[in-house]
């Protein structure tokens, strides 16, 4: 079960994930991010506070856009991950590549500093 909400705030786009990301619905996440890139969003905030689980397929989605983010100078910040999911990002090493913050404020700050 996954629901994705997209909202524009100031200069940035907030994508909020609610539920679990697994192999069956990772495509939806992929579509949303692809859309955001296509719309030339330069600042993307991912709200993971309601994210309960993410499988390797879901992590694969973030991973596959890392290069695109670099090329198009998109700032991508994740915030609000629970401890378990944060650990998943950490184990895989993705925390070294993606900026992950605890709170929305920290995340927004990071977004507008860059």
């Amino acid at each position, binding site marked *: 079960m996954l629901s994705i909400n997209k909202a524009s705030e100031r200069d940035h786009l907030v994508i909020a994930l609610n539920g679990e990301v697994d*192999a069956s619905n990772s495509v939806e996440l*992929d579509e949303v991010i692809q859309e955001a890139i296509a719309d030339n969003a330069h600042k993307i905030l991912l709200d993971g506070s309601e994210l309960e689980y993410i*499988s*390797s*397929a879901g*992590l*694969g*989605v973030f*991973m*596959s856009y*890392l*290069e695109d983010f670099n090329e198009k100078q998109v700032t991508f910040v994740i915030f609000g991950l629970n401890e*378990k999911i944060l650990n998943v990002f950490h*184990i*895989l*090493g*993705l925390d*070294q*590549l993606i900026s992950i913050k605890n709170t929305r404020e920290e995340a927004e700050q990071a977004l507008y500093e860059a």
Partner: protein
Amino acid sequence: MVKPPNIARSKIYILLTIMSWFALLFVDLVRIFGEINQMEGVIKREITWILEIIFFILLYLFFNNSINKKENSNFLNLIWRAASTGLIATGTSFLIIYFYYILQDTRLSDDPLLRNFFYHVNFALTAIFLISTALLWKHLILYQKNKAVVQQWQAYEVILLISMFFVLINQESFNYGFMFGLIFLIIYGVILSVNLKWIPYLTFREKWKSILFLAIIVFSTVYLLVQLVSYTQKNVHFVNLSENLFLLGLFAFVLIYAVFSFLVTLFNLPTSSVFEQKLTEAISFQKLSQSIQPGENEDQVLDILMDSCMSAAYVDAAWLELHADEEDRRTGTVLYQKFISNGERQEIMDLLKKTEPFSAYLKSQTDARIEYLYGKISHEIYQSVLIMPVRANKKILGDMFLLKEVKDGFNKEMINIISTFVGQTSISIENYRLLNEAIKNERYREELEIAQRVQRSLLPSALHHNRCFEIDGFSAAADEVGGDYYETFRFDQDNFALIIGDVSGKGTSAAFNMSQMKGVFHSLVQLNFSPKVFLSKANSALSRCLEKNNFITTTYYTVNTKEKTIHFARAGHCPTLYFDKEKNTCRFLDIKGMGLGIVRNDTFDQYLEEGTLVYHPGDVMVMYTDGIVEAKNKNGEEFGYENLRILLSSIYELPAHEIRIKIIEEVYSFVGKETLPDDDYSLLVIKFKA
């Protein structure tokens, strides 16, 4: 009991019949000779009767035997057999008359013995004709028999048998008893003669032929009867063989059945085409309903459909147009065009697009529920049109156009029968498609089984080790195939390499990537790189072959049992759990790392770290994939790292094999029996001994 072969039996019958006939002839001639010379009582007339009965019975047996053998010969053959026998008997009788005509006024022509000889010949042929025909009638009567008819016939046979012996009981001719018996036989013959079920199955031509044959039979029967009776009246010195209830009864039966058949066939002639039509329809149904064999084409069924519909409604021209279909490349093609040229078809199509009610249907094709369209058009040749959509799996496959030259050419019955044909075709095609799909699925399943077998073989069956450590592994896939991988390698006596990995995603795609990982491992391990170099080379290799959103997590270890050291690097894989016997601590070896395929450039190294350990006897190392720690119970709780750590702390004393079993048991019991594992589980346990 040994049964004598049939051929021998029929030969015996012939022989016996001929013998009985000669005996009869001899006895009768002697009697007449005695009568002429007034020598009374030389041979009693009862002997004649008994011989006659024997002759009848033998004939009956012989024909019963010989006709039964040709059971599957058709009706026309049977009737022809009767007719030809009748012709022979009649012909012989004519020859005898002609013979006497030549002998006119000679003494020989008055000779009673010669006359009686010819009488016996005539009698024999008549008897042959009657008995054989009666038995042929039996076949016709018993066509599509039911129990009642069979019983009727058996009763009739018994009655005939009794009637043979009637002559012995009732010696006076044509008294009440005789007349009563004869009338009874005639009535019974009439009752039997109602069974004429074979006639409708004759074609029109066959009916004409059978009418001819039946006429011959009727004529022969009447003539032979008259002939036999006339002997009785003409001759003074005479042995009367015809005054037999059996013979007269048979005459009546053969004649009645022939006349009935003749009349019924005659009156059936006009309706015979209808019956033939219905029979063809039934056969068409059967053809349509036979499901198409796998590998054969649907076109064949459509062809049969066209032919069936055309013959059912006397259609003058027709074509079948298939609709555009994404799956089918024969888009909008005209399949089967019968008795109509392309030009004419186009002409009619244009006409139809202008004529209601066809135009609306042909333009939009939206009303999918329409069953048929029927109406007239103003074309110079064709006056009525019927359009039938042919469906399969609720989709319209195409339209069948049927044209007739007459106005209002399709009546309700025709449309009904065509609808049924179309329905049957749909079912056939649907069944065919379902069957094909089932076969395809079956093949996929087999392929998957093969994949499973192949993948099983990718995991090592034996793990390298020496006396310094024990090692034990386990792997289970959630689907048929999985993406977990572990392997060992031995460089020399003291040096080993170990790897454990997990491919992102699961199922078939993960399995393919796992086999790539295995290839990469075996290529690189031989070069004896340090773990960090090994992983960065592996990353470089895999970056070129993995899909954009796929990655592999792995940990690579080198173990030196001489120096008792372990070097390892972690590429995004779950941190190894390590139990230190000396310090009595259990911890995760969490060093910096990055999954293979995530960073696909030279900067990958900078995200890696290499760890080094010195082990002591009693230390335990547990390598696992995320399936183990992320295994969920029915409440959605994960097994978790902490549970694993606590578990190992309590069972580190056990040998590696038992530690492995215990951990797997615990994980499965945590998950519970109701929940299906949704990820692959793999586990590798090493226990150092020296």
